[in-house]
């Protein structure tokens, strides 16, 4: 059995890995994370879900004549996993579970995580569904608690810090800090 760990990464992971300005802790953490992954010598693989591509390209001017080339270049460097029909079916089940899970909804409300439900949940559930469809080992997200809740135990959700802190015991409760 392969010991390679395969993770999907969310938009904030990508952003902190390329951004040189802003929260200095996050900028440094983004670089530390890349160093950590590279030092693990191909034992960790990172994959881009296509909805994340939409977010990370969103500030870029669509008038750029090289816009198409950007997409082409990204696809040569990263494996971009699409939100396909299998992911869509998984997403529909997660949305259905979410709608019927009063405990989960109340828990999200109590933790202020159910705002902008319609768009935010659908986006995060798309990411989670792509991860499940492709049998990823987990999703690396800087919005861990929200994404973890939407994942509803179907796939592991970790922060960059948790991936780096591999010796640390895994989180056992949803809102454990």
């Amino acid at each position, binding site marked *: 059995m392969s010991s390679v760990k*395969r993770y999907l990464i969310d*938009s*904030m992971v*990508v*952003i902190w*890995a*390329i*951004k*040189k*300005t*802003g929260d200095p802790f996050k900028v440094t953490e983004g670089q530390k994370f*890349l*160093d950590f*992954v*590279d030092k693990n010598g191909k034992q960790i693989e*990172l*994959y881009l879900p296509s909805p994340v591509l939409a*977010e*990370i*390209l*969103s*500030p*870029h001017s669509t008038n750029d004549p090289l816009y198409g080339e*950007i997409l082409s*270049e*990204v*696809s*040569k*460097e*990263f*494996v*971009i*996993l*699409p939100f*396909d*029909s*299998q992911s869509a079916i998984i997403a529909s*089940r997660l949305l259905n579970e979410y709608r019927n899970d009063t405990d989960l909804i109340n828990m999200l409300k109590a933790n202020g995580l159910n705002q*902008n439900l319609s768009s*935010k949940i659908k986006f995060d559930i798309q990411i989670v569904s792509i991860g499940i*469809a*492709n*049998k*990823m080992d987990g999703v690396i997200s800087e919005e861990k608690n929200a994404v973890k809740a939407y994942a509803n135990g179907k796939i592991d959700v970790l922060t960059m810090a948790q991936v780096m802190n591999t010796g640390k015991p895994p989180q056992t409760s949803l809102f454990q800090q």
Partner: protein
Amino acid sequence: MAVFEENIRLRFVGNDIKPTKIKVGELGAVLLQFEKTLKGIILSNFQGLGVDEKDYYLTLDGQIRNESAAYPLIAISPDGAFKPALDELNQILHSRNSKSLNEKTIESINKFTGWLRTHKCDAELYFGDELIATVPKSFSVNEDDFLIKEFSTLHGQIIDVGKEDPRVEIKLLNGDSLFFPVKIDLAIDLGKFLFKKISLIGRAKIYPDTYKIKSFELQEYTIVHDGTYKEKFEKLRGLIGRDWDEIEDPVKYLELNE
């Protein structure tokens, strides 16, 4: 656990069929396919809900009538799921379409109707005394009609290219292996990229219940560069890094609050 017993009758009619024309082994085989068909429909409807396949089965009720060939059966289940399954089978017979048809169920239906063709008879399905459906000997399900056809991108590593009629074996990210035919020119090209990360774009036919790919027709491919993630993200930074440097709070920006 509750146990439901539903009375079903399977009656073969036509071609002067009668019990003495059916061998015991044949009867067992055709009843097994009938049971598999109904179970396939039931289990598809309960997919992922943790039902136990062993809880659903047919038993023979012993009162074999000597006109035509009618077999009273008792359908055992924890929830009375066989009547809806019979109704759905009737729907399949009329529309040749159902979300409950998967690879194995289609195989069972086709084996069942293959038996009918061998004996040149039709089958009538009763629930109690009510005739629910008639299965004509001419009925068969074309598996292709039930597959998802999708323009897909597959990701993985090519682990073999070869054979007289060239075909490619790729190990997909989900661990599955997939074989697909390619033209010789493409086989020569792909042979250069053994064990490299590759994205393959093409038309796929996919089983809707397991999402296993039945066939794939390659149209384009992209080789994913080797290299460290530091290098990859540095290239990405070269493309869009400046855009993000200008954004003070990326969380707010993504929430469309900035």
